[in-house]
């Protein structure tokens, strides 16, 4: 981790740094952006003679306890609290993988865990032709898909792009589920998380799934049907009274100028039909230390686990295995 290059370095293990908003730059500025970053890095870390590339959006596993002791030295109440949280996590997980810390980070950590851990495709993905979903969006949300913007731009229509990424999501998911062994699976995951167009396209696809689910739940609410509790909270916000404003004021901006709020984590879990279990380290002393998003299908939906120190930046814990690759080469727990 290169602390001296922090001004230009988009990833951070603590707090999450704001993603530099490239959509507001002109074409010329956009072209010179990588070069400016290069020089900034060079200026800020003169001891590096070679620019260290970090092509992967999810880092290799490090030992949780050594990470915790390194990052949270000292004896402030906060340090003590966070270290205590990590010790509890360490009873279940041996390693931690840092996730690139931009505004997509909650989505990225979730997608990574899905691809790294799923044993099977979820039923909603198996039973439906999800490629049709973007064009099938009905009702008041029908035209929203046309307003979708993808980080890597591209000339094709939004509906076409979204269709492509939904198809790709299913394809990658199938690939990992059928991977021959752990190494093949890791390799398939690394293909996705290279910080390129594919990764961001898949993250936008997750946002689409959230919108579609929200639209369905909102329609059910209007019909007076039973809906999960979080829906009331989701649509009680002044800024998101309906799916349209949820999109315009929240979902559209996720990854650009903001991350996911807690109530949106419920929506994410619900859309994927996965229980997203989060260790919230700044709450190690309270009942909210481990929060389930959502909490009403804990027994029936598969669980994926994330870590956060502040509900803004998410990292990924790695299952306790007795022997496996670690930053020290093979390490065996006795």
């Amino acid at each position, binding site marked *: 981790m290169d602390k001296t290059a922090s001004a230009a370095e988009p990833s951070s293990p603590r707090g999450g740094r704001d993603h530099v908003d490239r959509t507001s730059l002109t074409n010329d500025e956009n072209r010179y952006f990588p070069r400016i970053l290069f020089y900034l890095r060079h200026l800020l870390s003169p001891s590096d003679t070679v620019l260290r590339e970090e092509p992967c959006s999810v880092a290799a596993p490090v030992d949780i306890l*050594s990470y915790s002791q390194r990052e949270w030295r000292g004896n402030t109440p906060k340090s003590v609290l966070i270290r205590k949280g990590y010790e509890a996590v360490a009873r279940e997980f041996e390693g931690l993988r840092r996730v690139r810390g931009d505004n997509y980070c909650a989505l990225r950590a979730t997608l990574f865990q899905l691809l790294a851990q799923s044993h099977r495709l979820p039923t909603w993905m198996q039973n439906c032709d999800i490629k049709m979903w973007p064009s099938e969006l009905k009702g008041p949300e029908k035209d929203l898909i046309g307003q979708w913007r993808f980080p890597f731009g591209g000339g094709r229509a939004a509906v076409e792009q979204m269709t492509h990424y939904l198809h790709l999501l299913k394809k990658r998911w199938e690939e990992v589920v059928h991977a021959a062994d752990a190494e093949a699976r890791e390799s398939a995951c690394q293909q996705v998380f290279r910080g390129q167009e594919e990764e961001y396209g898949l993250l936008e696809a997750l946002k689409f799934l959230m919108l579609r689910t929200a639209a369905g739940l909102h329609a059910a609410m209007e019909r007076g049907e039973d809906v999960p509790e979080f829906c009331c909270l989701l649509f009680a916000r002044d800024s998101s009274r309906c799916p349209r404003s949820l999109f315009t004021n929240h979902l559209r901006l996720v990854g650009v100028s903001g991350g996911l709020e807690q109530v949106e984590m419920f929506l994410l879990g619900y859309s994927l039909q996965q229980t997203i279990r989060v260790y919230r380290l700044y709450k190690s002393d309270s009942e909210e230390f481990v929060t389930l998003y959502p909490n009403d299908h804990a027994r029936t939906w598969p669980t994926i686990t994330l870590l956060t120190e502040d509900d803004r930046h998410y990292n990924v814990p790695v299952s306790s295995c007795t022997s496996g690759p670690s930053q*020290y*080469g093979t390490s*065996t727990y*006795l």
Partner: protein
Amino acid sequence: MSQTFHIPGQPITAYVQRIEIKKLREGSNLILGFSIGGGIDQDPGQNPFSEDKTDKGIYVTRVTPGGPAEDAGLIMGDKIMQVNGWDMTMVTHDQARKKLTKKSEDVVRLLVTRKSLEDAVRKSM
């Protein structure tokens, strides 16, 4: 119980400790509460604890808080020289694992070296 002494003729850069770990029974497993890395069949370049990056010895890569190894005074970064009198400086990773996890033994006596007292104090904080 542990003994610290200086190796005669060596500059005071390494401390030798005797560590006695009483294994903990967890169900059908006997656990020690620490992880090992290294071995003559492993890549020594990745070891952050060794001074000499060609050192293929067995190192303690992790110590579980509150576990038997921590109780016995083992510290992350310790190099394991012997287990119950058996040499560990020229063994494979798996041979090391086997020497430490014999089901017939519930105590293991280790001889470890530790870089410096300062390191040891810092790591134990």
